[in-house]
């Protein structure tokens, strides 16, 4: 079975033999990069994330016996690495001000964050701030459905969940998203 998206990237493909890393990278790196960017959010360096993911792929490739489809296997690795990256990012965000130089005396001080850049990214950051308050299983399904625009059936194949479970997670994720969005904007107070 091969489901092909509009960008001609194979989403689900049949598996014949265990591919090597080079082939996996060439065939799936773009898809993995897109998943990684959407799962991890705007504050994460996608290059580093893709690198980390394929390091894990290389390490685990000998264990891959083809019980799952390659895309499912890759997605699970991507999800785990992105999750770990977000965990690190929570710390990094706390330290984000450390990335600004606060130099007095020797240099002209500069404490300002460019307003334009902030506004440009504000919406995306709001989405991920809300998404980060959702349980992981709901977060992923909502991202795959709304941002990655996969169908329920595709999500089920990719995540290994039953289709009915996908719908349950999606219904609950939507309800939580709305509740958190209201909380975030203070509309419900």
């Amino acid at each position, binding site marked *: 079975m091969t489901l092909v998206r509009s960008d001609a990237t194979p989403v689900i493909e049949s598996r014949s033999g265990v591919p090597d*890393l080079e082939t996996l*990278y060439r065939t799936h*790196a*773009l898809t993995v*990069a*897109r998943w990684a*960017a*959407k799962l991890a959010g*705007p504050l994460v360096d*996608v*290059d580093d994330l*893709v*690198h980390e993911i*394929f*390091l894990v792929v*290389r*390490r685990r490739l000998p264990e891959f016996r083809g019980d799952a489809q390659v895309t499912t296997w890759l997605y699970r690795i991507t999800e785990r690495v992105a999750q770990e990256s977000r965990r*690190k990012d929570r*710390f*990094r965000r*706390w*330290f984000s*001000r*450390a*990335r*600004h*130089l*606060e*130099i007095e005396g*020797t*240099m*002209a*001080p*500069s*404490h*300002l964050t*460019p*307003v*334009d*850049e902030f506004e440009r990214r504000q*919406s*995306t950051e*709001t*989405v*991920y701030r809300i998404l980060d*308050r959702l349980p992981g299983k709901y977060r992923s399904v909502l991202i795959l*459905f*709304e*941002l990655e*625009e996969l169908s*329920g059936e595709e999500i089920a194949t990719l995540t290994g969940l039953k289709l*009915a479970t996908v*719908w*349950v997670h*999606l*219904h609950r994720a*939507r309800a939580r*998203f*709305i509740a958190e*969005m209201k909380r975030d904007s203070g509309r419900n107070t």
Partner: protein
Amino acid sequence: MKEPMARSKQTDADERTPIRDRWSARPSGDSDEALAGALLRSAAVVPPFPAKNLAEVAARLRSRERHLPRTWAWQVAVAVGLLLFGGALYAAVLHILRGPSVVSPSPALPVSMPASGPVRRRHVGVAPALAPANSPVPEPPPVAGGGESGGKLESVPGKALLEPPPAPLANPSALAQESRLLAGAIHKLRQERNPGQALAMLDQHRARFGAKGALEPEAKVTRIEALLRLGRHDQALGLLDAQVLTAAEVGREMLVARAELRAEKGRCGAALNDFNLLLAAETPPDLVTERALYGRATCRAQQSDWTGARSDLEHYLARFPKGRFVDQARTAVGR
């Protein structure tokens, strides 16, 4: 009893209903779903991964850079940490549930302790351990060098680290230890104004975590700031020279600092590269732009590019009429 069960079954059935419409595809509106859709649309746009980056990551993979297989020792350490934490949590929960009456007296307690009197529950140290992982206001991590500095972090307005740190992890991971060390260094630098001690803590950070630390970029910036505060410009410039900087977000501040240091050392060619990078894009009217514009004028003048220098100074006066270099700029252009 049957009615709630029936309602529950109905809810389950509703939740299994396939969803075909995406919020992100809905037109704008005032409904919650439309607002959510508008937000999600903004996040859905992810630029395609550039072919250049794809090739770079492939090259990194081939070079086996940062290929750090997990060792059994690391896994054992995590397991031990989890066991210890689990034990502590279990003991804490038991302590709360049973209360002081069931706590067996410690043999070390003095025998002359009064048998009666008010019995106080001891909650010290228990609450943080029981706080949920995503507690909204977690405690800041203790800063190396004393508990008092940990309290000051939140009390100094307008300074770094005003926000509480992320919730404490279940086990003190390398990341948590690293963050504690770096928080201490930043506190020394920015709250206590002690760049020497900050540098010492950063040296500890480097010794323990090396270049592979998750917070290495933040540590590097803190080190540069400490070196500049100590007047060790050469070392600061050495670190900045080794950085690949862009004129985006926080990189702008590093870029302008590097340009000024390069200009200070008479390396105006290299400084101009940085100033040009900063001023090439549409720039916000902030201090970085102001410094870059004046700095470029200075460098151009040093390279005998009088036309360029004059143009920058005129531009500076128009854009920053109350800027800090206004007097010098006016004098230079003869106003």
